[in-house]
């Protein structure tokens, strides 16, 4: 293993010597080694002569139209950059833009309504249902369309009705119901509510 490593170092030194990438002390070492080891000398000469042959490798240019296309592309790009860049390199313009943006942000913040009950309008029904369910309320939804906003009614958030007002409403509703039933009206303009639903609508508790 050690032997292999040493040989590998010699190989590296040989290539570096051929390509003149050794420091003076290493050059001396390699040249001394070549004096002792003829095979090393032959190898280095062989590498050198092969590399010399590669010096004859041709150099070729791209077709003229390709070079011209590149130059044209560079011209177009730098013109674009100059046009765009010159506008934004102006510190005055940058400062003005920053002030305008900042002002817009401030005024927008003031104009926007603060969070209130309106926000419920955009709350998904499912979340409303969860809230209502967790607070012991009831959610009523229409079955017209699942894709549209649904009427929801949260019982525990209904308006408060005093017992006196509640009694008056019951009496009025019962009177209408009785009149309609007695006159046999079937095509009613006024909806007829059952007492249970009426109670539910009025109090939200279905009393």
């Amino acid at each position, binding site marked *: 293993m050690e032997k292999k490593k040493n*040989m*590998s170092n*010699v*190989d*590296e030194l*040989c*290539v*570096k010597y*051929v*390509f003149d*990438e050794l420091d003076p002390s290493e050059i001396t070492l390699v040249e001394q080694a070549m004096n002792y*080891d003829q*095979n*090393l000398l*032959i*190898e280095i000469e*062989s*590498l050198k*002569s*092969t*590399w010399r*042959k*590669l*010096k*004859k*490798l*041709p*150099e*070729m*240019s*791209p*077709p003229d139209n*390709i*070079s011209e*296309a*590149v*130059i044209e*592309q*560079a*011209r177009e*790009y*730098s*013109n674009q*950059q*100059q046009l765009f860049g010159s506008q934004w390199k102006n510190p005055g313009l940058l400062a003005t833009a920053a002030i305008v943006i900042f002002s817009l942000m401030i005024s927008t913040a003031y104009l926007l309504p603060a969070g209130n009950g309106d926000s419920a309008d955009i709350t998904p029904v499912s979340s409303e249902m969860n809230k209502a369910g967790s607070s012991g309320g009831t959610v009523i939804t229409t079955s017209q369309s699942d894709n549209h906003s649904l009427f929801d009614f949260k019982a525990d958030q209904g308006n408060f009705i005093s017992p006196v007002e509640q009694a008056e409403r019951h009496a009025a509703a019962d009177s209408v119901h009785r009149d309609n039933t007695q006159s046999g009206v079937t095509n009613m303009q006024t909806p007829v509510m059952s007492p249970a639903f009426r109670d539910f609508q009025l109090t939200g508790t279905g009393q």
Partner: protein
Amino acid sequence: MHQVDDHELVQRYRKHNDQEAFKQLLDRHQSKIYSYIYSMVGNAEIANDIFQETFTKVITKMDETYNEQGKWIAWVMRIAHNATIDYLRKKKRFVDVNAQDDPDYDFYDRLTDETLDDAQEVIEKGEAKNSLMKHISKLPKEQREVVMLRHYYEMSFKEIAELTNVSINTALGRMRYALINLRKMFDKEHGKEEKYVERR
């Protein structure tokens, strides 16, 4: 006559939109870049595409990614090398640089490195170079790229190692094996016995 260095030309182009400076940069380096790409892919049309792709990146990324502390040509070369390697990886095979790949293309039509007076000399030199390129095309890609980067860009082995993401020792080893293989090919071509002496 004083020759403006690359650094100054790059600054003129970037800061003053000096198109003439960019043209000078291109004139100065395009042959080496193109030769390297061509030697790796062995097809003129593909080399043209990769060359253009390289300069599209050079033009559009210069402001973002080129650090003026480094050599401009080394930065461009890295882009060219990566574009070439990307192509080779996509193809998943190595393309030989020979007439069979591109029969209508004469490698020597656009030689720029010398002026040749004698027609016979043109043919002889052309043949010699053609043979040289054929041999190089037979090298494994890793060995070929080390040879080309050293030849066209005079990159140090440290630079080659960085560019190709290998250790310096690996880069040196690849060069050594490339030269040994080429030597064997030359000897075989000239009907010689293998003269290479194995040291061990």
